[in-house]
């Protein structure tokens, strides 16, 4: 029998820290967000970062360092919750030396950029399929050029 995959264990360890922080194993924000990485507070007063930002009158959009702040200053705007989920992945799934890169190693910087882009891609995974499905559905319902009837911004 193979030894347990350390990564599986590490992921669960990280999740456990979140549960202990939130003091529940079924955390959820009233808005429906359930990913512990995007949640804050202590049970039963749990709220996601986006709702918290709205409540405090801040913008829900944050700037994400694609390759991590130590590697590259390039940033992309992201809603608060996915930003935290992505940051969690960077922290737990990336090799520490790549994420932290204290020596500013250019190879590691490149690796981090690719990892960051893939992570964003991962976040967008499924969205093109969903848009295509929606277009097909609307075409069936309202005709081939259905989109011309709506003031959709370009």
């Amino acid at each position, binding site marked *: *029998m193979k*030894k*347990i995959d350390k990564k599986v264990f590490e992921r669960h360890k990280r*999740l*456990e820290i979140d*549960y*202990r922080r939130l003091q529940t194993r079924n955390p959820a924000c009233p808005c429906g967000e359930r990913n512990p990485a995007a949640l804050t507070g202590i049970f039963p007063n749990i709220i996601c970062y986006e709702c918290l930002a709205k409540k405090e009158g801040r913008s829900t959009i944050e700037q994400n360092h694609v390759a991590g702040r130590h590697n590259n200053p390039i940033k992309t705007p992201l809603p608060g919750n996915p930003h935290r989920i992505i940051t969690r992945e960077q922290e737990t799934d990336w090799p520490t030396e790549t994420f932290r890169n204290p020596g500013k190693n250019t190879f590691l910087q490149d690796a981090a950029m690719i990892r960051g882009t893939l992570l964003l891609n991962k976040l967008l995974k499924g969205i093109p399929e969903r848009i295509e499905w929606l277009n097909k559905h609307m075409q069936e319902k309202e005709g081939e050029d259905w989109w011309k009837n709506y003031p959709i911004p370009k």
Partner: protein
Amino acid sequence: MEELSYSEVNSSSLEPRPIAIRAFAWPPKKKFRKPEKRWNPLPPSNWYLVFDSETFTDAAQQLRVGTYQLLEGNMVHEEGFFYDPQSLTAEELSLLESYAESHDKTIRTLEEFIREIFFGVFEVGGTFLGFNMGFDFSRLAASHTLARGNMQGGFSFIFSLGEDSRQPAIRVKHLNAKASMFRLTVRPGRSPEKRNQEKGVEIPHYRGYFVDLKSLAAALLGRTDSLASLTDFLDTKHKKVETDEHGRTLTRQYLKYALNDVQATWECFEILRSKYDNLNLSQTLISQISSEAGLGKANLKEMGVKPWRSLPQAFSLERIGIILGTYGGGRSEVNLRRTIAQTLYCDFLSTYPSTCVLMGIWQFVIAQMIECRDDDAATEEVRHFLDKVSLEDFQKPETWQKLHAIVLVQAEGDLLPVRAPYGGERTLTLGLNYLTSHQPLWITLADCCEAKILTGKTPKVLKAIMFRPNGRQRGLKSILLAGNPAYPIDPKKDDFYKRLIDLRNEIKKSKDKAEKDGNQELAFKLDAEQKNLKIVANSAAYGIFLELNVTRYEKKRKVICYGSEGEGFPTWVHNIEEPGRYFHPLLGTWITAGARLLLALAQRLCEESDLTWIFADTDSLAITPKQEMTFEAFIQKVEKVREWFAPLNPYSKKESLLKLEDVNFKLENGKITSDLEPLFAFAVSAKRTALFNIDGQGCPIIRKASAHALGHLLRPYKEKEAPKTILPPAVKVKDKIGVERWQYDLWYRILEAALEGHSHQVKLDDLPGFKKFAVSQYAATTPKLLSWFDKYNEGKPHREQVRPFGFLLSFFADKKKISTEEEPSENTEGKSESFDDFPRPVAPFNKDTQAAAEKCFDRETGKAIPNAVLKTYREVLSQYHLHPEKKFLNGNFLDSGFTQHRHILETGREYIGKEANRWEERLYTGEDPEEQIHYGTSPFSQETAGKEILEGSSTSHRALARESQTSRNEFSRLRRGQKVKAGTVARIRQAQSRIAAEQRQDIEYLQQLLEKVQARCKETGLRQFSKEAGIDPGNLSKILHGMRKPSFADVAKLEKPL
């Protein structure tokens, strides 16, 4: 001896004796009120680590190889072995590797296992599963220290982690034979809990999740099991296999055995978990259930019942002291000693829950506050009630609702439960005896009624405090009892205890039906369910109200002791009592008093029906005819007594509260029929009793026997080696009779001798293994027990030391043999050797116990003990059948017939606490006076105490000062009537009673010796005996006629031929 009526006995001679009273002690400045915690613990994740360790069988029991399963839900992520590289040979390691490879198992070194898996499971919030996990943690640990804080009295295990030393230690505290408490220490560095705490949220630290199946099974099934018997009972797919290969060279078979153990443990857990889930106790985690009381508490928590301590109107500490002073446990007594008599054995239906229902205890449990009335009107009301109340009144349930009071009485020869060191024993025992006291005493109203019912004499009431529930707690919610939708309980309307017993009766009925229909599987399931309800009912009806957890500190700590005087005084103790969650002394003391009253009513009714009783134990009574009568007449009379209790039955199923036990009914092919059969009882002393039928040849057929004071001994022989001359048991010896086979054989021989008319001479010669050294096996579960091996461990590396939870062997030294082996010597403190200075032999564990005897040493001094002074089983048990019932008169070794109540004249009052929760330790190793918490006497009575002590003492002051370890200075202060330290008076009193007890013991011994000499002289003649003893016949005659006091030399001479 003839049985005397209560009034006759009352006039018997007074015995001056100190009595002991329970008190409540609380550390100064510590708040007693404990508000409810706001946070429910985070439940564990669905990760589990099941593990077990296999060790060498030498003294150190060092780990060799361990097995484990790492699971997420039911999915096994990893299964395999971990091993200690230093414990395996190269061949064994290669065998382990090849076995692991061929069976697709993982293999890790111990260090790797600890680092990757062990602490990994903690970090994913997983649960640790094992059977007797304290032992396993100790094997895996690299070192240990003594635990501190709330785990004081336990051990802290530190694990070897190589470079990573940031992991926490595991602390284990042994609570009792069935339960231990496990906790992680707080991990260094930051944690989510610490961050939350910094934000001001009171979140407890993460302490890990542990489930010890031994404790869980005991709590859920109410039975103490080994893994083997548990797998049998639960009928798991994989059963625990027995092996003789422990400690030998590893084999493939042994590795298979080790893997099987872990699988069997997991399967047991799965079944127990589903049983627990069925109970629907969402507020309590399964890892929090470590005892039967835990189930009771979980049910109350589920209903939203708040602990009394958390309510704003809890009593003052002074009042708690008074209330706790009225506490006495269950009665366990022998009335007809060492005499075979026909009996019908009865017991009360769910005594404690029934008492709760009768007394309306539930209303107090859910009350928002309890009102006290201690004015003159309350006293008058109680006096009036006591004057008017009669036996018939207790047949009406409403009378029981009037017992909500405690009373201050002036005891003037009243029959009351008296706790005292009877017969020179240092252990305090509770006996129903006549008491005369110059100082008033607080007792429960039920105890007052008991005295009146039994003697007709009403105790003189000086004051009374009446209690009444007021209001109802908020937030009470309905639950489904045992998860059964047909049994909802609304705590606001229903009586929890009544509903519990009703449901149990219903399940029992369904079980009987299933049995009749031949559906054994369903019957088995229902039986387990009804037993579980019984456990819940008993724990919720009594145990939880008097839960006091004792923590032993190395250094004495200051506490304020609140006794029956009502005022607190400071004292210093090693053992501190911490009340449990639902601690409520008022209810605890009422319930036990109510149960004693039920028993007293039954006794009185027996007396009125020309019946008497042989023995009683808390809720059971072995009834016997006073005079000769036919079996049918006897049954009729007992039925009359039983019928009397029918109106008191509060449950839906209408039957008498006093029921006939199964042992009364005839056995056919090992099954109980509905026909009554003549049953006989033989009672030696409290809890040493046997019930049996007699066959055509006059041989006993044992139906029930007690393993009291036998259970600690290792079996001297296996079941298959039992002598052929003893009739094999008619039913399952362990399950139905309640003893092991060798214990059954011992009882058989005792009963055989009694039936043949020589009850004092029991033939033990042919019992195999009785010539071996008697030995007890126990685990080093507390720092104190482990400290006996300090000298043995000195200089040894950790892996070779005797470690916590390792097994130890305890032997028994013979006083007589020691005196012939070596002359008594003066010890270093110049104190002559007393009984206590006799060696207490212990030995490191060895599978071959007789070989272990070779390495015996004194646990106090570390001095080697020769085999010649060790007692054999035969010697240890030679007087089992003569054990005295010292709390009563006519209860001495050779006495038989009816015992009589003593009449105690109280000479002093000592406040005590609960004895530490280590009764089994006390049993194995002999009584340890330190285990009983002594708070001393109150300084309020000290002024007179000094005078009393010095005037009343027959011992020289110098001897008294030496025995009590009191300085001459303090002694002279006492003589001058000046104030001395609180503990001094208590110490002197204890010393005084010790000396008196020793003197009494000597006198008793001498009496017995002379009886034996007299008997022998009758057989062989006085001249012949004096020749054998080497004593002048004239002197012997004078000694026997009481005209001359025998010298020590004379006693030694007289002992010689005997």
